[in-house]
């Protein structure tokens, strides 16, 4: 296992070492089952994982909330409408342009934004968009990074030289700066790579950008691990048996880097959601009128003194979601490899 290579704590007493090994690797239990056992013991990680699941479910139920409770869509303006609050009829948006705060009723439960749109509805739809972008971006990152990292590490030589230098170039740019540059450029004209076409306002544009910019952060550690694995005896044995490089990579190498990839997934999801929020806040992510937590915070900034709920509510959702993924992700990492330290350095 790869964790053997990372191990640091050796005991001088062989019997003690054997005892420790037996506790960590009881006989007859596979590594993933063992990890699940460890994860189940980590109550905090499970609690935050459950929090994340609840938030995801809430966001998935956005259409139900919109149609059955709020009776409005995420992009429907109610600027000149009025709503009953505490027996009084109130403007959704005042004549001076200040939107109504939380009513704690079905309609405008968390208030309205400056266009008179229901904040609660937009919050849930925004969450869907943020999570969708985060999930797709993570998928792109993991797939590209796994392919590039494995190929570079396995073949070494000029293949590694080219891939590693390209990754270095992407790595050299600050994520947000690169994301804003790509986001602004693609927001106007969209993305047209022949077969692969994206409209400028498609959610897949920020997902593709974020997925692309995080590739080096995952590909490099995978490459480093593959460089070590390719020298192991089981790989030599596979070569001797005449297996093709593709089969060796898929059947021998990949299963051994799987735990690293799994550990990276929650980290990349969290970072992707945060980056999406940052890009959307700067106008380079999710395009209006589609909501996302980032665009909602950006839209609410100018009204902070009079309608602070416009920034607080999406901000809080963002914090809870990231906290949920990160703490759960740490638990998964500890469960898979208690001695490894994986984090994304930016």
């Amino acid at each position: 296992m790869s964790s053997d290579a990372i191990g640091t704590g050796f005991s001088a007493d062989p019997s003690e070492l054997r005892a420790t090994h037996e506790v960590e690797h009881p006989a007859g239990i596979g590594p993933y089952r063992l990890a699940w056992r460890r994860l189940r013991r980590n109550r905090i990680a499970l609690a935050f994982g459950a929090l994340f699941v609840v938030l995801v479910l809430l966001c998935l139920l956005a259409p139900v909330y919109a149609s059955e409770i709020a009776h409005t869509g995420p992009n429907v303006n109610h600027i000149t409408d009025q709503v009953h609050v505490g027996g009084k009829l109130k403007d959704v948006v005042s004549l001076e342009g200040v939107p109504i705060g939380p009513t704690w009723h079905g309609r405008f439960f968390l208030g309205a934004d400056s266009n008179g749109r229901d904040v609660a509805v937009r919050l849930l739809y925004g969450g869907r968009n943020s999570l969708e972008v985060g999930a797709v971006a993570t998928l792109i990152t993991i797939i590209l990074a796994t392919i590039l990292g494995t190929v570079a590490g396995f073949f070494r030589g000029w293949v590694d030289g080219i891939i590693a230098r390209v990754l270095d170039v992407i790595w050299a740019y600050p994520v947000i700066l690169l994301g804003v540059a790509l986001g602004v450029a693609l927001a106007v004209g969209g993305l047209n790579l022949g077969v692969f076409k994206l409209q400028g306002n498609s959610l897949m544009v920020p997902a593709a950008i974020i997925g692309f910019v995080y590739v080096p952060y995952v590909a490099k550690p995978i490459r480093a691990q593959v460089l070590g694995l390719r020298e192991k005896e089981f790989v030599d044995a596979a070569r001797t048996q005449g297996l093709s490089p593709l089969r060796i990579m898929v059947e021998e190498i990949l299963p051994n880097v799987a735990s690293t990839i799994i550990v990276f997934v929650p980290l990349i999801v969290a970072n992707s959601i945060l980056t999406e929020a940052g890009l959307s806040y700067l106008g380079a992510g999710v395009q209006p009128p589609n909501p996302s937590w980032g665009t909602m915070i950006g839209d609410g900034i100018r009204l902070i003194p009079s309608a602070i709920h416009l920034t607080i509510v999406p901000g809080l959702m963002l914090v809870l979601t990231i906290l949920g993924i990160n703490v759960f992700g740490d638990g998964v990492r500890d469960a898979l490899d208690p001695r490894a330290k994986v984090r994304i350095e930016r």
Partner: protein
Amino acid sequence: MIAAGLLLAFSAVAFGKAHTSATPTINYVEGTAPDYLDPQLGYTTQAWEVHWLTNIGLYTYAHANGQAGTKLIPGIAKAQPHVSADGKTYTVQVRSGLKYSDGTPVKAEDFAYSIERAIKLGWGGKSFYTGYIVGADAFDKGKAKSISGIKTSGSTITIKLTTAYGAFENVLALPPSGFVPSGTAMKNLSSSPPPGFGPYKIDKVVPNKSFSVDLNPNYTPIAGVPKGKANISVKIAATTQTEAESVLNNSADVFDWGDQVPPSLLSQVKAKAASRYKLEPTISTFYFFMNTQTKPFNNQLAREAVNYAIDRRAISRLNGGNFIPTCWFLPDGMVGHTNAKCPYGDPNKAPQLAKAKALVKQAGLVGTPVTVWGQDRSPRKEFVDYYAGVLKSLGFKVTEKIISSAQYWATIGNAKTPNVQTGFADWNQDFPHPADFYFLAESKSIQPLNNENFSMIKDSYIDKTVARLGKYGGSKLSSVAGSWAKLEQYTAKKAYYANYGQQEVPLFTSSKIDFGKVIFTPVYGTDWSSLSVK
């Protein structure tokens, strides 16, 4: 002898200090710095509100509130120009004995030099010169060393035009037509602006942070242009929030009229500073353009539907209530503005959405893709969010494109940009003449780059009418007001635009300022020369 000299010097310094301290200083805050402090480059309200006081040209505007403030008065010129019968030759006499702020005498030759400098430096509105003055275009293209259409003889200036242009007197009153001494460097002098003739001079410039507009000791008052009463210290605020707060709590004196008091502070301002806050209309129009050359807005029914559907009261709320809802292109206060009944219903009442939907259906345009363009700047982004919602409710398949404010005009004005179908636009007058608005609707304004006729209007009636009425300017302008109003009704019926508002701006000062005496001109906003301390 030495002691006497020192005593004299000390007295002079002491007297000088006493004299300086007698002139009050007013603290002016702006959310946006002037684009240029060089008079031949400035092209924003923040620049022009300064330059019309520091660099007067042959003509200027009366320092008066309301309609009276649109009256052209002689500046460096002795009197109104003599215009030839064909409207192509202007003869102007220049006053004698005037001095620039640095003491240099003002000469008639400086006029041609100043215009050449504006062209050479590439002022954004240079087409006002190159499009009308004989030889100005050749000078711009480097084919001539000077503008052949401007001749100076003694104190007489003769200007020949390629075509009669009624608004040319207004062009002569533009701040970039303001005089600077011949020989002034042909480069951007914003960090150390050149001297000018006027009651004020620009001083102590810290780019994008602060500058001073101090009383000009060499100013010889001319009729209609009073001496100022205080030095003005201008600071650029980080946000309009801090800008408004500083005036509200009296730590600054004047809020720039080019900015809007944030909605979050508006109720406080109205409650605590009611005696020093009011709204003033600007000569501006805000509208959604609709590209008449492509589907769906090449169909008049679709354009009419938009005009019926938009709720102008709603957009006013998005603008903090600072809009006068309207459906006319020419704003109130501009010659040609009509008070006739709006063809699409009362703009102060609910829109006719059902009728609008029926029109789109009748035109067979339900489901047509429409791309809506807007700026990322608030509240303009909110206008477009709202507009996109309206178009969607009419049955169009809407895509919204919100781009950086800095890139917006160049992007939608570029013929190569795809799907520029509809979106946000506005116009603030360069000078009080309807031709300054209607050039946006002339077919000759359609250009491959920096196009301003966003609706791509090609209407021979508009072209001919603007060409005919455009010859009337100055005192003759009011004689054709009815014809402009008729054109206005024609344009509204064709629904080339969806006009929704005329902007109102805040006149807001600290309690230190004598608010009742502040003049707000429709051309350059707050008249700094009227600012005084109680």
